[in-house]
């Protein structure tokens, strides 16, 4: 099996009056584990269906391995889709399920069952061929769905939130497993999810979508450390958001007048003095005491113990602050009055815009 690259060329998708996907360009490299991350209704599933061929883009082209896919149905594309509810055929045995794609291609019964057995071995379900899907556990069904999709030797495997029905432990286990399978077969994986943990843990690159638009395409580390928009900043991980007015910018360091006083941070937008601005600081980048550039006196409202870490709920001039600290002796007996400090590099300044959690 060889992976192929997928290119969306000015793809726009409209249903009636509603535009599900705004015109966008996106290139997914061959053999890459690529995730599309976004809240429900952001258009990510629509994009997946356009790649798999269930819907045609209203405008633009989908190219797979450089070949234009226009007019090709789902059964003619080198893609295989794993559905959110897996959509295994309940009346067929596990082996028949896996062999179905080969059956459709006219492979003889003996050959296709042999191939199904190999694939079931690949997903560690060698002895389950004669069982019905309903006899298997959630994780096993998941692996059957993967084997069934791999049986048709796709160049691109599309996964539509296939882990969302599993419980937390199994989900974490399946993440590692999916990644391992992708490495083994070497084809392109395009993974749709609203769960940032899944996207960040598995992917080579992640695209964040919101309201039919691509917000940012980057590696997981870049997304977390260098978000391009307020939406990405707040959707991926937690943020403390301060609203204010931009005073001035010197060498990329912006000074913003906020309710808690003047705050300095790196400017991430093309805005000039006087504009409405958002300052974002991650809870784990805030320290207690010290003088790392910005310091805000605040009152401790509540402590939430998470186990290895602790969340401090603080307030300063009506502004709410969340501080995450490693759990230890230093945070056992905290006074009510604290000084929160964070460096200029830890604060990002954006233009006023849409946030992820409203």
């Amino acid at each position: 099996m060889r992976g192929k690259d997928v290119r969306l060329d000015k793809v726009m998708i409209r249903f009636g009056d509603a535009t599900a996907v705004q015109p966008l360009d996106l290139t997914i490299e061959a053999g890459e584990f690529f995730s599309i991350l976004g809240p429900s209704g952001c258009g990510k599933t629509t994009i997946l269906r356009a790649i798999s061929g269930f819907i045609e883009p209203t405008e633009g082209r989908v190219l797979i391995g450089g070949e234009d896919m226009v007019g090709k149905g789902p059964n003619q594309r080198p893609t295989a889709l794993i559905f959110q509810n897996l959509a295994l055929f309940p009346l067929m045995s596990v082996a028949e399920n896996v062999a179905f794609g080969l059956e459709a291609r006219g492979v003889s019964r003996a050959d296709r069952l042999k191939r199904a057995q190999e694939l079931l071995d690949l997903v560690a379900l060698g002895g389950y061929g004669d069982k019905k899907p309903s006899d298997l556990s959630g994780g096993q069904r998941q692996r059957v769905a993967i084997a069934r999709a791999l049986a048709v030797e796709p160049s691109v495997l599309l996964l539509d939130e296939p882990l969302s029905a599993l419980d937390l432990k199994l989900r974490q286990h399946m993440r590692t497993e999916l990644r391992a399978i992708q490495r083994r077969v070497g084809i392109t994986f395009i993974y749709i999810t609203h769960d940032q943990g899944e996207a960040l843990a598995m992917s080579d690159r992640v695209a964040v979508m919101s309201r039919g638009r691509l917000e940012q395409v980057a590696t997981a580390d870049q997304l977390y450390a260098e978000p391009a928009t307020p939406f990405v900043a707040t959707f991926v991980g937690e943020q403390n958001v301060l609203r204010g007015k931009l005073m001035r910018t010197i060498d990329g360091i912006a000074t913003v007048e906020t309710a808690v006083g003047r705050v300095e941070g790196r400017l991430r937008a093309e805005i000039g003095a006087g504009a409405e601005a958002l300052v974002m600081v991650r809870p784990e980048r805030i320290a207690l005491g010290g003088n790392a550039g910005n310091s805000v006196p605040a009152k401790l409202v509540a402590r939430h113990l998470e186990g290895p870490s602790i969340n401090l709920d603080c307030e300063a001039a009506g502004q709410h602050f969340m501080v995450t600290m490693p759990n230890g002796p230093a945070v056992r007996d905290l006074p009510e009055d604290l000084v929160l400090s964070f460096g200029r590099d830890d604060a990002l300044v954006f233009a006023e815009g849409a946030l992820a959690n409203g």
Partner: protein
Amino acid sequence: MASLARAYGKLLAALICAITVAWVLVLIVVPIGAMLEQSLWWRESGGDITLSIDRLYNEIAVIELDANTATDPAKRAAIESTLEQKRTEIATLEAQETNPPKMYGLANFTRMSSLHLYIFVRTIFYALLVTLLAFIVCYPIAYAVALASGPRKTVILTVALIVPYAINELLRVYAWLMILDYRGVINGLLAWAGFIDLDAREWIPFLENPSAVFLAMIYTYVLFMVFPMVNTLETLDRNQIEAARDLGASTWRIHRRVIIPHAKPGIAVGCIMTFMLSAGSYSVPVIMTRGQGGDWFSQLVYRQFYESNNWNMGSAYAVSLLVVCTAFILIMMRLFGVGLRDIAK
């Protein structure tokens, strides 16, 4: 009973049980039992008795002539006693003639004439054919209704299917009669287009063909085939269809391997209903053929009851039909691998 009492209280549980028992008794056990009983006996009302009575009357007339001419008192007394004997014989025979003795046995079933047996077999065959044709017609309709995407489409299709069924069955059959009659809509159109001349009796005799009955029957029973199928098809996860397509399956293979296996219980129920209704249909063949086409078995049953006035024979015919229909149900269930449980769903 115990669990019912726990759930609803003793009084309500007793009521529920009583209603169920009454239902089974009044609507199932008693009528079918009565019919079975009727079919198992007959009265020997053969011509022999009538013939012997006639003969006896003749003999009496002759003897009475003798008695009038006889002069010897001894001889006259002997003749009188013979007359008396003959008269009592007539009385017993006449009693037998008006109320012949019941005879129990299976003769009602074995006595079916070869013509009636032929009609019986042909009716079963026709009913099977109607079922098959109705399935072919209804499967695409059921599929379209069940998988219609917008609620509007579903509403339109449901209305289009249900509204015709708000009209009386007889009217619907008569409508087909008007369409297919000698001077009906189709022949009228053909004449108007100049293909045939109605005055020269060049019409196409649709009604003399069993297919006219088939057509009306399929139309009459479409709903019974469509709705069970719609019900099962609606429960099909559409992702399965898309998954099959995505894996490269052709439309035909998707239907054969994914959709039809899923719809099996609905197909079985639809086929059973359509078969039972068409095998036992009376009005459709009567109206559509008007005696021009062959009889259906239901017409024979009717005639046994109300024209031959032989309820025993009629019951035997009806029971035969019932047995064959029950066998059909069991075969269908076996063939489709569905149990009563699946059908009840």
